[in-house]
């Protein structure tokens, strides 16, 4: 299997209290697959992605990519965060060159940066500073930067959560196009049902307290998904029903917490 997560557990210890965040996560991802991880806030979906990225470590269990156990961050796993995380002291182009420079000449890196900036339709903004372009454009630069490393796996952690509706749907198109063109394996964390339905081959629905996989939903209909409205509606209701009890659980915990104060 391309990417496999085996019995991943993760717990945090805070003030001598241990809280289980992820419990027994078991998931396999095929090469070239677009998999969304969908769940309410606090279900540990971002934590799971951080573990895949190598930025956090599993308390128990392991994750393997192409047969190798993940131990730390590496260029083979590019990551796009919720905030673009561009370096303000570098231009757009220099930001995309940043991961390339240690391994290739400046000229080659620049060429490659331009190629990927064109892919996200930002070829005209190479010399701009990050703060001179909009949030959606910044996120596109971040995508270009992750792609420029030519990672085997692209990790996206709610990359469009902070953007407005129009910008988001434009970025969905760009991501879908990139996915079809580059055939990258993408692991995409989101809390938006619509977003996951639009983009994924499979949706991993996660429950909370502790974070577990509730169900994995396979979406076998053609792209663009706007053609198959009825099927989408069916799945949307199904996922909503799955998540309803989870959200009730969170609300109940909040109320208990409020009552105990």
């Amino acid at each position, binding site marked *: 299997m391309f990417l496999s997560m085996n019995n991943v557990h993760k717990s945090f210890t805070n003030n001598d209290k241990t809280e289980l965040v992820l419990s027994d996560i078991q998931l396999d991802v095929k090469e070239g697959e677009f998999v969304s991880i969908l769940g309410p806030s606090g279900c540990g979906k971002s934590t799971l992605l951080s573990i895949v*990225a*190598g*930025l956090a470590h599993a308390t128990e269990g392991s994750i393997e990519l192409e047969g190798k156990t993940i131990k*730390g*961050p*590496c*260029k083979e*796993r*590019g*990551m796009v*965060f919720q*905030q673009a*995380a561009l*370096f*303000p*002291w570098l231009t757009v182009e220099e930001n995309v060159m*940043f*991961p390339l420079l*240690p391994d290739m000449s400046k000229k080659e890196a620049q060429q490659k940066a331009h190629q990927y900036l064109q892919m996200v339709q930002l070829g005209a903004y190479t010399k701009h*500073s*990050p*703060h001179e372009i909009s949030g959606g454009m910044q996120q596109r630069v971040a995508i270009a*930067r*992750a792609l420029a*490393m030519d990672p085997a796996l692209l990790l996206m952690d709610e990359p469009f959560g902070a953007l407005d509706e129009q910008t988001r749907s434009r970025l969905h198109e760009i991501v879908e196009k990139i996915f079809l063109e580059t055939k990258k394996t993408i692991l995409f964390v989101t809390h938006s049902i619509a977003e996951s339905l639009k983009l994924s081959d499979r949706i991993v629905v996660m429950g909370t307290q502790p974070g577990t996989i509730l169900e994995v939903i396979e979406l076998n209909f053609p792209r663009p998904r706007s053609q198959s409205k009825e099927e989408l509606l069916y799945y949307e209701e199904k996922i909503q029903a799955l998540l309803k009890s989870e959200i009730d659980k969170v609300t109940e915990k909040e109320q208990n917490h409020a009552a105990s104060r």
Partner: protein
Amino acid sequence: MQPAVKRVIFYVLLFGIWQVAVYLFDVSPALLPAPTDIFVSLYEGFSNLTLVYDLVASFRRLFIGLAIALVLGLLLGVLLAKSKTADETLGSLILALQSVPSIVWLPLAIMWFGLNEMAVIFIVVLGATIVMTINVRTGIINVPPLFIKAAKTMNYRGFRLFSKVTIPASIPYAVTGMRLAWAFAWRALMAGELLSTGPGLGYSLRFASDFGDMSRVIAIMLLIMLIGIIVDLLFFQRIEKKVLRKWGLAT
């Protein structure tokens, strides 16, 4: 009305009233000389080059002291930001020293280095290093963790991560630190020269005071003030603004 116009009117009035008051009440020049006397003294000081020599001497010490302070402050700031133990021990001492005006070290400095330039430079270094250290430390501690995470996914770690991400990300704080270090150094230098030895602006001020030449005293005070303002406005504030704009922190 433009702020600049308001300012000109204000200063003309200030000096005008001062001039008239000194004239009307026949104030002794040993107490408060008239503005015209001060300007004459300033002109004389520049035409016979004594003030120019003082300026050169003062600036020489300032640059030596400030250069040492900036390098030292940078190194100490990095140390405090990177080592928790150093921060908890040495850091507390540096914070405590911040509340002590550096000039109080002069008696000790004179014992250690003698009544010479070294003692004054020591005071300047002490005054400027602490504020630089604190700013560099704050800058490094406040580097957004997201930058570090992002860089790690791009294979940056260790010294390369530090030099390519941590250092540039903390430059806005370091620049503010430099600006404050200059201000502290300038004040410390004047105090040091006033109480130790010359040549220098501070020393000439005391020399004039010993001879009761108050118009020279005020002329030098004006000069100290003007240099302080000009260097800050024309140099440090400009750099600071440029950096903040480039880093997207100010519009």
